[in-house]
């Protein structure tokens, strides 16, 4: 193949650009579809995400709502933000700071039955390692939430 010097450089450049721009467009498209949004219970009640889509749910674990199933590893509880409540189930080892009345971020998806199925629970670790969503929430809503749960 006898390609002129200038042409070759140009072809390489164009090919590289096409691939990179293609990658960028694909990424943008995939991000729209795959990014997992953060919801508080009142959002879920107002605009429920489609069942099966990965989302995160943040709120307070309602007092008296925590129940353990007979297998000893499946738990059910209710997450609330003072305005709305969402039932959640989770199979796994709960973080040590996960207790009734504490904040939690649950990663998972809504089931068709309106119960949120969590794959992972992030509890408030300590003052320095608070999930971001919860940081904002404690600022905005903690007082109200605490008042209503007690």
């Amino acid at each position, binding site marked *: 193949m006898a390609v002129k*010097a200038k042409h070759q450089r140009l072809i390489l450049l164009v090919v*590289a650009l096409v691939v990179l721009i293609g990658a960028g467009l*694909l990424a943008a498209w995939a*991000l729209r579809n795959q990014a997992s949004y953060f919801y508080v219970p009142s959002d879920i009640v107002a605009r429920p995400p489609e069942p099966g889509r990965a989302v995160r749910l943040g709120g307070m674990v309602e007092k008296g709502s925590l129940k*353990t199933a007979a297998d000893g590893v499946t738990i059910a509880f209710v997450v609330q933000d003072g305005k709305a409540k969402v039932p959640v189930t989770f199979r*796994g080892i709960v973080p040590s700071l996960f207790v009734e009345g504490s904040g939690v971020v649950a990663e998972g998806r809504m089931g068709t039955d309106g119960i949120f199925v969590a794959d992972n629970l992030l509890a408030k670790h300590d003052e320095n390692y608070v*999930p971001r969503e919860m940081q904002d929430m404690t600022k905005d809503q903690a007082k109200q939430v605490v008042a209503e749960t007690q």
Partner: protein
Amino acid sequence: MIAELGLAALWLAAALAALQLLAGALGLTARGATLGEAVRPVAIAQGLLALLAFACLIYVFSVTDLSVKLVALNSHSMKPLVFKIAGAWGNHEGSMLLWVTVMGMAGAFVALVERRLPERTMLATLAGQAFVSLGFYAFLLLASNPFERLSPVPAEGNGLNPLLQDLGLAFHPPTLYLGYVGLSIAFSFAIGALITREVGPTFAKAMRPWVLGAWIFLTVGIAAGSYWAYYELGWGGWWFWDPVENASLMPWLAATALLHSCSVLASRDALRSWTVMLGVVAFSMSMIGTFLVRSGILTSVHAFAVDPQRGTFILGLLAIYIGGALTLFGLRASTVAEGERFALVSREGALVVNNVMLSAILGIVLFGTLYPLVAEAMGAKVSVGPPYFNPMSALFALPMLVVLAVGPLLRWRRDKFARVGRNLVIPAMLVVAAGIALVLIGGVSLLPFLGLALAVGLGWASVLPLKGRNLRRTPLPIWGMVVAHFGIAVALFGMSSESAFSIEKLVAVKIGEVTQVGPWGIKLDTVEPVAGPNWTALEARLLVRYGTDGRVTRMLPQSRSFWAPVQQTSESALLTRWNGQLYAVLGGEAPSVDGKDEVNGSGNRWQLRLWWKPFVPLIWVGALLVALGGALALLGHVLNDWRRRVVRGKIAYRRERQGR
């Protein structure tokens, strides 16, 4: 006293960096030529002073001098010594000091040993290095002074995050930083070459060992970090696409591309401006990573301090350095003469594919990492995880790995597929055979399926460049390439196998009860309290047996409670066989059903999370092979250079004698 000494050394080092920048810049002009001679000694002194400051910090941590604020905030007198020392860089200020120390030492090392570059390019390079260092000295001294005193002196320190109290921490950050910051050399080389317009094989040959060195550390650092996350977090995963992990992956992707384009430039004098560009991009990714990790805009175990002022400072530095370097590139790229030509089917062509694909993956990871930040600025809280990263990166990684099997067999400049085709028959058959076997096994999803099949073929193809060679005379860099590519195949096999064949089991069992996970029978023998220097724990004794006739082995997972700071962690227990790893995590006591308390202790159930992960250790074995390959190549290049120097010295000596 020691703290003040450290601070003084740091200020002095910063002053020397300023001097180095000035002398280097003036040295490039006709009138200041004599000043240029000062640059190398100054660079060495600067590096040594930074090292002294770092040694001072390690000292105050090792004796737990609580009058130093940083020590009081992050250490504790009751910690084992190794974690006291490691704690020196387990916090924001200390890790930034480690950063400038590595950067200073890297500059000093270049000044000491690098003789191949034209002297003018060398001056520009060291000036560039000093310019970048200066910004980070400023950040350290003005916004994150590690030696600040505290008054009154507290009676005890706050302690270190227990997750970080692990031997992994002692090695992971320094290794990673050597890689991260070592790339600053490539950045400075690129800037130096752009300033003097001397981009060519000599430049590439001089830059290559430095890139290789940084890349080896980066590879080991990422592998170590991944293994740490795997056993310390107790989640059973080895890569979470956490922004902090991505921050270390992005420089690695750029450095890998740079490494390959460097070899094109060194051997064939092609891809000139592209190589320079990658030099700039690689270290820019390191800096972006630092910004993401250190600015506190991300939540993770790495985000030591949430201080918006610091974030703004690093962002400013980023803008200056990356913006400046890209501007310089824009101005000078067109004046860099064009390199040699090559046909599309050639070694160069394959390496271009490698470069473009790596860049595409880099772009995808960068997009996915920054997207949540951009979205948050616009009021939406999102997170991006494996459902995005896995398929998107595989989309570009898998074709790249196919090219990886072929590329090293192609000749430089021009080749035909027909010539190499015969060699690839066996690997192709292996891929098909593996594919058929996997279909028969069934239940393997698409990505692991492709990964496993490709890994088998790639493993074979990667050693083909040795075919027909006298193995004892094969140059070390070729060995390095083969070992590294084989390592990629090994790691790919491990990753795919983990994702295809892992078996997870989550149970609550009574003492004495036996549970099955894949081929393993696991009996919960006892659960007893144990105590460590700064923690107490519940330790389960598991008696495990592989198959029906295997030996019984003990595993001891713990659930630990630290008291400074108060936190619980789970210490997973791992049992490694040649064909995989058994992974056990002890949860808590299973909460009693229906609120009825079971009073008699024997009836209590304990939560266990168990995984059987076939071939998972191959992930890290592969990564270490990749690093070993890099080390072999580096050794080969350095030895070559040394031999050439010796020969040149002998010739000069003979000439001198004959002249007499």
